[in-house]
């Protein structure tokens, strides 16, 4: 036996493959980095104290205060959450605790269908049916309703996952003491799943804030309004970008990109916190 017989001949191809795979993985970092750099670069001229604090947004005058859009984004997201969270929770609890097995599957299918419908179609329905037919007009409320419908599948599926990690022994303990189904839920399921549900809600929040198209179609595109009146027309960050980009000149574009960067930062922050919360609650429950 010669040592040379044991040398590796296939090593170059093997290493090349590893290198390619490594490059592919690294592309994620590259893209994210590029996004951050390029967009901030372009948006730089528009950033400044007035950007985040002024309420006047007037393209012809070159004045760009983003506050009304921040408000719009936040407000519609809050309305969406207020509508979506109770419904999502109810559905999640129903599917996991109440529904008989033959009902579970079709329900999950239903939710999946809802998740797959593209947001444009929801927007279309919102603009031509909800706001026209039902006379809701284009307002914060209409946008909130559409957003709610869109984030319900997200919150529900994540909440379901967390709820199903409730230890069976906890539930049985409650039932064995003579608790009704609802009492068992309050005693065993909800305390255990609290953290995860909060995380799920926050993920829904992130999605609602970033949703462009549905909001753009129904929110009304009014400028300068910071009002808690849900029936008023308003605007949100993604909506204003979508609606005003077509005819924007350079400084206008920079301001719109600045909006995008702000949106980027906010949604990333919300998503990060949400993911951390969900992971922590899953870890805790699996450790028991």
């Amino acid at each position, binding site marked *: 036996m010669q040592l040379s017989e044991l040398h590796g001949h296939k090593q170059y191809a093997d290493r090349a493959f590893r290198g390619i795979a490594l490059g592919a993985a690294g592309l994620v970092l590259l893209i*994210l980095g590029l996004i951050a750099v390029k967009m901030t670069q372009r948006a730089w001229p528009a950033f400044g104290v007035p950007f985040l604090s002024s309420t006047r947004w007037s393209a012809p005058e070159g004045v760009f205060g983003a506050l009304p859009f921040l408000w719009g984004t936040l407000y519609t997201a809050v309305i969406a959450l207020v509508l979506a969270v109770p419904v999502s929770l109810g*559905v999640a609890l*129903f599917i996991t605790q109440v529904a008989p097995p033959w009902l579970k599957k079709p329900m999950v299918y*239903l939710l999946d269908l809802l998740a797959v419908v593209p947001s444009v*179609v929801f927007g279309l329905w919102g603009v031509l049916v909800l706001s026209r037919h039902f006379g809701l007009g284009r307002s914060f409320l209409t946008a909130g309703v559409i957003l709610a419908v869109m984030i319900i599948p997200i919150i529900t599926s994540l909440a379901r996952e967390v709820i199903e990690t409730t230890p069976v022994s906890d539930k049985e303990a409650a039932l064995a003491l003579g608790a009704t189904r609802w009492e068992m839920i309050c005693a065993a399921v909800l305390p255990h799943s609290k953290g995860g549900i909060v995380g799920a809600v926050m993920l829904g929040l992130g999605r609602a804030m970033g949703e462009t*198209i549905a909001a753009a179609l129904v929110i009304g595109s009014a400028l300068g309004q910071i009002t808690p009146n849900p029936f008023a027309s308003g605007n949100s960050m993604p909506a204003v970008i979508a609606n005003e980009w077509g005819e924007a000149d350079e400084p206008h574009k920079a301001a719109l990109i600045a909006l995008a960067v702000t949106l980027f930062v906010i949604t990333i922050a919300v998503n990060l916190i949400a993911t951390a919360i969900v992971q922590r609650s899953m870890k805790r429950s699996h450790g028991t």
Partner: protein
Amino acid sequence: MMTSVPLDPHDDLARGGALTGGLDLGAKPSWRTTKNALMIAVMAAAVALVAIPLVAVLWSVLAKGAGIAFHAFPDFFTSTIPVISRKAGPGVGPAIVGTALVTGGATLIAVPVGVLGAVYLHEYGGTTTFARLVRFMATVMTGVPSIVMGLFVYLIWTMSFGYSAFGGALALACLMLPVVIGSTEQMLRLVPAPLREAAYALGATRSRTILTIVLPAALPGIISGVLLAIARAAGETAPLMFAVGAATAYNPDLFHEANTALSLQIFGNATSAFPAAQDRAWGAALALVLITFIVTLIARVFTSRLALKR
């Protein structure tokens, strides 16, 4: 246990409860049971509440969309978009081609990169700092709003190369990439270690083991994940707005000239005041929803095949 005759509560009570010691085991209505029934009803109502918008939207799309789409079948799906939008008449042919080009292009970019990236993360990277960083960033990337991706592609592609389907494909690929990485890595995790060990023990290199044993074993799940990503990408509008343009004629060219897509058509026509344009929007919505549903259905078939194999 002791008696072979099932205990009839009526008999028992009639006999003065001699066997059960006089216990009454029937259900007793009370505030607690009412509350229980109430809350369950509330939960069921929530389910109904979810079904309503879904049914309403699908109904509208079906009714209004089918109206125009099949009124002039198959013209609707094949003829070009009227340039003057208030003109009545179909169709959305170019938009279908555009959607296909953009989604297809995005898949061709995102799938190899995503699968290879997931392979690195699971088979080579493990828990190294780099791998953990990439996983974390991939999760972050799934949360990037689609409009941000669209603007990003505008800055790096459209500004230099003009409108084209490729720009749209790039944007969609950026959206699909983290999803493909996540679901592929999940599938790779499910491939049992003994399978890899058997291949190593036969003298197979890492790369060969991955390519001939691990990936084929995880394939149904990977395909399912990819199909779901495609279904979502096909419906996206915002990323395309800044990259694709607004063509009205057929444009099968991926790289040159503006193009259009179903989602863009819907968006553009939805705000139009002309009924003809709105009708086209509904028709396009029908086409888009059909495509999305079919792709999702195929994905489900793969998932169930995966379950069967075990």
